[in-house]
């Protein structure tokens, strides 16, 4: 395998509703910043790939508009995934393994606010028998949370502690949307919105964008003092039918973690993409993470959750801590689909 590293990261502040800027205007600053920080001339970037979802914008081929932000002239090598930017990064990593290009720009954007997000997400379900019933994303997550609470030792207080820790850590993240110092026991006095989920158990609805520049081998060493090397990366998917799964588990996350050698402690930092508090509990169990690993110092998706962006942001946040030497070894995770259906795991190291 060719050595590939994250050498720069940029993200837009997450907001509940970006009513001023269109997608292109949101992308331009983050792509410009990520490319500038990489030290690579934009015209020398070997491959460009984006992650977004047309269902969020409600327009077919909405992702093509994003290219206006890139400067695709003379024509560039480009690709797109209808997924979170973390999977776009995976494609870029594979592309760099070909060996003929040495750098890649990965960007992603999502305006979750344009439609009713919990309904929009219903359309990723089986279109014949499930989507017509409009089971919304929060209710489906509640099914999973109930399955976990009744089938394990985890409690609603464990979930509230995840929320409180995320909000507390997010106070140091200028791009976060939900921050604060709250007592988990107080959170339990709040009403349910989809029993057993309360508001604090659910990620906010966010608009945002992010970009990462990857570089291979010597180019990464030349352009970045301490590149965040991608030591291993893998992604797996569970069955599409929710009824075919044991919802309190995420076997695709476990297998992806095993594939990258991540099912053991030894991480300084883990950035886990868990849009619901109980999902972090599931993922911590699947990854075998103990208290020795600092989890989601950014505040995670519970503090800022732009669709199609929050997964790449986990990689970017983890990589940033490797690049600034506050971590030697970091785990980054991204999820997609209902109830942790699809999972990507990535190990980043400073040496």
């Amino acid at each position, binding site marked *: 395998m060719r050595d590939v590293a994250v050498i720069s990261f940029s993200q837009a502040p997450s907001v509940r509703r970006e009513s*001023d800027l269109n997608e*292109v*205007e949101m992308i331009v600053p983050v792509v*410009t910043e990520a490319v500038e920080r990489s030290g690579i001339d934009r015209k020398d970037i070997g491959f460009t790939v984006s992650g977004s979802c047309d269902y969020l914008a409600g327009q077919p081929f909405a992702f093509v508009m994003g290219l206006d932000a890139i400067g695709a*002239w003379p024509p560039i090598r480009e690709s797109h995934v209808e997924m979170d930017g973390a999977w776009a990064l995976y494609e870029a990593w594979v592309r760099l393994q070909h060996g003929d290009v040495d750098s890649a720009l990965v960007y992603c954007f999502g305006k979750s606010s344009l439609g009713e997000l919990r309904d*929009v997400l219903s359309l990723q379900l089986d279109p014949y028998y499930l989507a*017509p019933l409009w089971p919304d994303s929060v209710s489906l997550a509640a099914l999973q949370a109930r399955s976990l609470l009744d089938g394990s030792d985890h409690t609603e207080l464990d979930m509230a502690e995840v929320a409180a820790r995320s909000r507390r850590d997010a106070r140091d993240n200028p791009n976060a949307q939900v921050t604060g110092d709250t007592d988990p026991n107080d959170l339990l006095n709040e009403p349910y919105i989809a029993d057993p989920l309360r508001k604090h158990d659910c990620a906010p609805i966010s608009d945002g964008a992010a970009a990462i520049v990857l570089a291979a081998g010597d180019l990464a060493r030349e352009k970045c003092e301490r590149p965040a090397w991608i030591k291993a990366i893998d992604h797996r998917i569970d069955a599409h039918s929710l009824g075919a799964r044991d919802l309190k588990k995420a076997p695709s996350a476990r297998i992806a973690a095993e594939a990258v050698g991540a099912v053991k402690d030894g991480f300084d930092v883990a950035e886990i993409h868990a849009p619901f508090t109980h999902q972090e509990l599931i993922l911590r169990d699947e990854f075998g993470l103990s208290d020795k690993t600092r989890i989601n110092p950014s505040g995670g998706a519970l503090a800022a959750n732009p669709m199609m962006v929050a997964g790449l942001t986990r990689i970017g946040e983890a990589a940033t801590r490797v690049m600034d030497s506050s971590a030697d070894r970091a785990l980054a995770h991204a999820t997609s689909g209902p109830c942790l259906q699809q999972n990507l795991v990535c190990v980043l190291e400073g040496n």
Partner: protein
Amino acid sequence: MSDPITKIATPISLDYSYTPGRAVSRFLRGIAQRKIVGERCPECTNVYVPPKGACARCGVATSEEVQIKPTGTITTYCVVNVPFTGQAVECPYVSASIVLDGADIPIMHLIQEVAAEEVRMGMRVEAVWVDESEMKPTVESIKYFRPTGEPDVPFEEVIATIEGAD
């Protein structure tokens, strides 16, 4: 054997809001007042109409507003002869790319008040606006373009305009 089930209906409908963005909002507010506003790229100096907020060539933000005239030159066109559902204009009609005076990127619009076979590359045209009472922030505030009667722009110059965008 029982009849095969060949069809199920699963109606789906979602409502979205739309964010035009800063650049397009400036353009739409202008067009509601019979003004066409473009934006210039600080790097390649191309002027975009309608502006999208970024130069598609250079990938940098555009911010300098440029007033564009409601007159321009046809750079290419097609004659629509096939009727289709919802067609607003009677066949045959002409849809054309028009580089407005002061812009570098053509817009698409209808050409009317002239026989389809008389339309040609290089023809000079002008915007015909809807009545004052119907002016709205939409490109439909321009009903169509019609010939100005000015001499054509020489073919070589039209080609140079198109190639200039490279």
